[in-house]
């Protein structure tokens, strides 16, 4: 056929495309380019319209995107290894935010401190949130998913949904149905200003935490023994067993790693937005999973990229003034983008064909 660039295995596994022959690649490419051009034009026009506004909104996009990225990676890790949409992951993230609140604000009284003391308190909060969420996510896997490893494919999915209800409502049991909220923890004084708007520590800390986290994650996954075991298990579980890898442990490791990232995400969320509630993880989780799919599920860089992309969409859509549909359409836009990307690039932006796994 020669219409798709892929391995021989991939082409043979995609007979459905043969129903719409060449036409697809050509016409679809043209439409895709047109759409891209339209979006580019809209962005450029907005930038020209009010460059300061554009810059501000872009910075917000990066900040929000960081949180989506941190959560999205947890989805992608778990999906990569179990092919399970871990619906409970968003709620693990919520727990991260709530634990941060309990530890850093309720117990250690972060809002009363500044300087080194604040830094110390926040560091403790970060570690607690990450550890708690890693443990929680591993516990969820142990309790709810491990027994279902050979069950019909959709059984773990429904279990994940059930776990999501359980986790979010446990938050409600512990913290109530209302928001927990605190005063801004970090100095909001300007590091620099754009059009009178400050870019302060509260925003910078998001990047100061996210970027090193992502870098160390890449190192853990690429270089460490269990990082490799996890990747091996994701690619070929039987072969991993034959290497003497304890597959259950490798899967638990993926859950732990994803949980830790969700915990860090929750920490960042609480420190930056300073409030949280039991249902926090619903929308964030939905968007983060979408981000993981956008980027190409199973691909860590892709998940991060997808997270930032959604952060940009959300903020451009609500903050740009020239012909933006407005925040009430954000969800639709995100999902329309998702659908378009999957139509044009069925494996996501950076994804490799899943069929290369055996």
């Amino acid at each position: 056929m020669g219409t798709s660039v892929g391995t021989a295995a991939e082409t043979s596994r995609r007979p459905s495309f043969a129903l719409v022959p060449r036409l697809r690649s050509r016409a679809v490419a043209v439409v895709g380019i047109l759409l891209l051009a339209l979006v580019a034009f809209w962005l450029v026009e907005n930038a020209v319209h009010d460059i300061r506004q554009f810059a501000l909104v872009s910075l917000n996009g990066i900040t929000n995107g960081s949180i989506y990225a941190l959560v999205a990676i947890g989805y992608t890790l778990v999906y990569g290894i179990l092919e399970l949409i871990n619906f409970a992951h968003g709620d693990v993230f919520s727990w991260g935010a709530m634990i941060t609140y309990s530890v850093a604000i309720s117990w250690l009284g972060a809002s009363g401190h500044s300087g080194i003391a604040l830094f110390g308190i926040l560091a403790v909060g970060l570690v607690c949130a990450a550890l708690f969420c890693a443990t929680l996510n591993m516990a969820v896997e142990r309790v709810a998913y491990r027994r279902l490893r050979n069950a019909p494919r959709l059984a773990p999915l429904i279990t994940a949904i059930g776990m999501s209800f359980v986790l979010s409502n446990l938050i409600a049991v512990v913290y109530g149905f209302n928001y927990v909220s605190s005063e801004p923890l970090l100095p909001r004084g300007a590091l620099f200003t754009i059009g009178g708007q400050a870019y302060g520590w509260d925003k910078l800390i998001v990047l100061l935490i996210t970027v090193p986290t992502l870098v160390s994650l890449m190192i853990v996954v690429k270089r460490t023994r269990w990082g490799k075991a996890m990747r091996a298990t994701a690619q070929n579980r039987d072969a991993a067993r034959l290497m003497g890898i304890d597959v259950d442990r490798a899967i638990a490791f993926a859950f732990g790693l994803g949980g830790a990232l969700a915990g860090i995400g929750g920490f960042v969320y609480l420190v930056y937005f300073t409030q949280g509630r039991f249902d926090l993880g619903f929308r964030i989780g939905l968007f983060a999973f979408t981000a993981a799919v956008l980027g190409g599920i199973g691909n860590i860089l892709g998940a991060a990229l997808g997270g930032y992309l959604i952060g940009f969409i959300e903020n451009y859509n609500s903050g740009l003034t020239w012909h933006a549909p407005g925040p009430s359409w954000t969800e639709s836009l995100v999902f329309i983008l998702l659908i378009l990307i999957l139509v044009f690039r069925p494996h996501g932006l950076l994804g490799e064909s899943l069929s290369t796994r055996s």
Partner: protein
Amino acid sequence: MTANGGQPLLELEDVQVFYGAIHALKGVSLRVDDGQIVTLIGANGAGKSTTLRTISGLLRPRTGSMRFDGKDIVRASSQRIVRFGIAQAPEGRQLFSRMTVLENLEMGAFQRSDRREIAADLDRVYELFPRLAERQAQKAGTLSGGEQQMCAIGRALLARPRLLMLDEPSMGLSPNLVDRIFEVIADINRQGTTVLLVEQNAARALEIADRGYVLETGRVTLADSAAALRSNERVRASYLGES
């Protein structure tokens, strides 16, 4: 009863394995002596791969006993079995296709922590298969069939096994490569590794093997020295393509 007089390294006795209602192994008994090459031959679906998967701990026998080096391995997890010294290059290679060749080989040494020794073993594998050295930074999924097979064998060797199990190593390879693979297997065995070889190419397998077992629909129907099997009428008719 042994031809070469070695100690029994692996012993299976009356092993029965089920896939759901399908009775895949109906009581397989076999023994592999230290230092030997033993081959399992049989038609498609006779249960050869199932036997290897069972030994590796991927499948659990319903009844029967399996002993490796005197230790009961029926209940052992696959990672413990690897630790005992059994490695397998599975059917269809089963490489980690999105990892590089080097990473694949390193995964073979997953349970080992002796870095220096691993490096030495890696060199040994590169010596056996110089092609792998050339391609060590390449993704395993992009290798040719022969190279993938080399990688799979190399990966198993890096576990530094006492028993190396090879499942259809010659499948889908060009005649040249088949020759090379069998040479390497003999070579590995000469260096002291016991080999359990599953092959459809019974003629070649029996050439290098010490002992052979014929599997038919989940049962061992013949067990003898390789030389005796080569001259057995039934084996000749059914598996060596002679009439």
